[in-house]
């Protein structure tokens, strides 16, 4: 049991560190460490993200695990983890490309033609083009396979009609991958097909969603008679569900980055705010809850290290890594609510200029419900653990073998 790199890993780390020392946008470091992307010290997050991605791509430090000919580095999963450890605060600048690099790119690598890969992937890797993922719909969230956006074949094209929702970055994207229903006469999982499309195609209308916390990170995307060439199909017609699993598995593979739990800001706050016993962290009345969050936060960190260790041995991380978001999501919500209670009347103030701790716990509390829903609800994650880790029976699915257009409430 040790935390030492193998000689190869150590050499790679040294190489990464040397390049970062010479090339990272160090003037932004303090701002990124302080408040990430929302830091007031970061005036143009979009430009900073684009510039950093371009620089990395030019030097071969973008999308490390992709093949070199598509703009990557051909690295091992472990090298990718080492890179993300070394990139540190600058990794926050990758926010624009998370979906494209983590999900769209790997799907293209698996299913696009050689010519398409050479055309699209390098520009995606370098951040020159931004991609989004059009999966969720108003009536298909956890039950993604119940989606209703229709695509019908017309000659060499497919004509798409429907609505997508919760699409991150749609308004900033040039391209997207989209999962649609091409055959409603078969059971729901069998009638889906995946495509990639140009987000500037006629018939696409993008509307930002105003979220419950007042911000807008996501969009609704309306598609009316949008034409997608058949050549942009990813996988066979009807194979869309399997293709989407490739995409989602890649999401789960991006381990080692670590979900924010809210614990670090909590400890900072409890070390500086004072109560009757001095710093709040020494208040016996708070001890038990603080300790509970400490072990969950540290436990997650060490669980991620165990997964990285498995990667280093060449193993594939399994569904047990679902616990990260499950634990972190509810922790954020509990911690934010706990701190607001400590702040008393001023806990209701959200103006960063006047609220305690710059209003970060108020912002955290208002954002936290989304964390427990996006990318798999707490309930879906528990199902995954119960079924795929513990081997319990799958939920009963009454619609599983029924043709989609024979269901009670089809499109």
């Amino acid at each position, binding site marked *: *049991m*040790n*935390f*030492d*790199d193998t000689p190869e*890993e150590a050499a790679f780390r040294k190489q990464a560190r040397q390049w970062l020392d010479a090339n990272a946008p160090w003037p932004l470091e303090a701002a990124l460490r302080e408040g990430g992307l929302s830091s007031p010290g970061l005036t143009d997050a979009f430009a900073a993200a684009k510039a950093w991605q371009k620089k990395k791509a030019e030097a071969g430090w973008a999308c490390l695990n992709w093949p070199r000919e598509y703009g990557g580095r051909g690295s091992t999963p472990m090298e990718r983890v080492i890179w993300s450890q070394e990139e540190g605060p600058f990794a926050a600048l990758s926010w624009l490309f998370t979906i494209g690099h983590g999900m769209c790119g790997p799907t293209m690598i698996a299913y696009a033609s050689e010519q398409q890969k050479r055309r699209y992937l390098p520009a995606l890797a370098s951040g020159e083009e931004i991609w989004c993922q059009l999966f969720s719909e108003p009536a298909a969230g956890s039950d993604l396979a119940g989606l209703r956006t229709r695509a019908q074949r017309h000659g060499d094209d497919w004509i798409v009609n429907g609505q997508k929702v919760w699409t991150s970055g749609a308004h900033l994207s040039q391209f997207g991958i989209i999962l649609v229903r091409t055959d409603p006469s078969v059971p729901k999982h069998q009638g889906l097909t995946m495509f990639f499309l140009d987000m500037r195609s006629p018939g696409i209308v993008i509307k930002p969603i105003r979220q419950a916390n007042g911000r807008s990170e996501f969009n609704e995307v309306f598609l009316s008679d949008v034409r997608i060439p058949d050549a942009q199909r990813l996988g066979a017609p009807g194979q869309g569900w399997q293709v989407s699993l490739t995409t989602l598995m890649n999401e789960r593979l991006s381990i080692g980055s670590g979900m924010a739990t809210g614990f*670090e800001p909590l*400890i*900072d706050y409890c*070390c*500086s705010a004072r109560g009757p*016993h*001095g*710093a709040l*962290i*020494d208040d*016996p009345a708070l*001890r*038990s809850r*603080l*300790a*509970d969050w*400490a*072990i*969950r936060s*540290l*436990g*997650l*960190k*060490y*669980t991620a*290290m*165990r997964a*990285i*260790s*498995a990667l*280093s*041995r060449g193993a594939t991380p399994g569904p*047990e890594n679902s*616990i990260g978001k*499950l*634990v972190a999501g509810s922790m954020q919500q509990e911690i934010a609510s706990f701190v607001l209670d400590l702040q008393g009347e001023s806990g209701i103030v959200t103006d960063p200029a006047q609220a305690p701790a710059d209003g970060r716990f108020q912002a955290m509390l208002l954002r936290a419900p989304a964390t427990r829903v996006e990318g798999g609800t707490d*309930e879906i*994650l*528990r*199902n995954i*653990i*119960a*079924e795929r*880790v*513990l*081997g*319990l*029976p*799958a*939920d*009963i699915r009454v619609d599983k073998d029924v043709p989609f257009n024979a269901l009670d409430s089809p499109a």
Partner: protein
Amino acid sequence: MDFDFSEEQMQLRQAVRKLLGHHGDVQAARRVLECGGDYDAQLWRAMSGMGLPGAAIAADHGGSGLGYLELCVIAEELGRSLAPVPMLSSIYLAAEIIKLAGSSTQKMAWLPALAAGTKIGTVAFAGASGAAMHFDGRVLRGAYFPVADGAIADFAIVFARSADCNRPRPFLVDLQGAGVRRARIETIDPTRPHARLELDGAAAEPLAQGNDDSLACLLDRVAVMLAFEQIGGAERALTMARDYALERVAFGRKIGSFQAVKHLLADMFVSVALARGNAFYAAWALDRDAADLPCAAAGAHVSASKAFRHCASNNIQVHGGTGFTWEFDCHLFYRRAQLLALALGQPAYWEARLLRHLPNRTAPSVAAV
């Protein structure tokens, strides 16, 4: 990075599991429960024959000289089968404090017998009343309870105050000698006997290197080993619940197909996974004697206590009425979970120690724990 046990350590795990299975697995604890015995002497002899008690005792002192990681592996297996042996008292506690604070003469005198399992030691460090134990320069006076294996131990290291030191330091007492009274007491887990220990002029000698930090230092180390026992128990309780959920049918379905039950089991898995992460880090810190040990050990013990209690109680819940019968083993895990959560004192002590030593604390603290 290799944040896991080695191939050899995994082989040791299999060998220990096989030995425990050979001695009846959980049935060994059941026999002690039903017969009101002290411990499974046959199992203890077999374990000693394999060199297990001496895993972290140097070969020079009669041990097998393997190391702490091996001891953690053994502890997890003992926890998984609720093994009724004096490991906590004699090895985690007594051998460890002698290693930490004994002179070379004291080490030579006691460690070989502990490693061989021919003598049983224990440590008495706290009174339920916070009661005092006092050393007057020659003999000890006072009473402590509950003392793990206090009725069967051959000797004890007793933490006591003296005129020139008001923080407890370790003293070695022969429990066969004069001035020792001890009586077994009933506890929440009868498969691990405890006693009340009264010393009235019992001859004692200080452990030569003992100091004001010996107790905290000892407890940190024991907390790591105990965390592995707790994880073994927690994981076993989870497995029992999972197996039962796959077997028991109600409303025409296996109960494990109901989301209410699935999610209960998923949460048990999460608590064990987090506890294991914390315990692995603590095992590393113990093995390397890292500066981070106080935080790592406290985190491991707090996390493992929660996981074991959580899994043991939900194991009964999944078993329903069946789980509340004497004949089913669920209550053995439930009892052991409570015992181990309190074996090293109040959870509040460990919570405070964890927070006191958090690496990302930014402000100096007034409260020293």
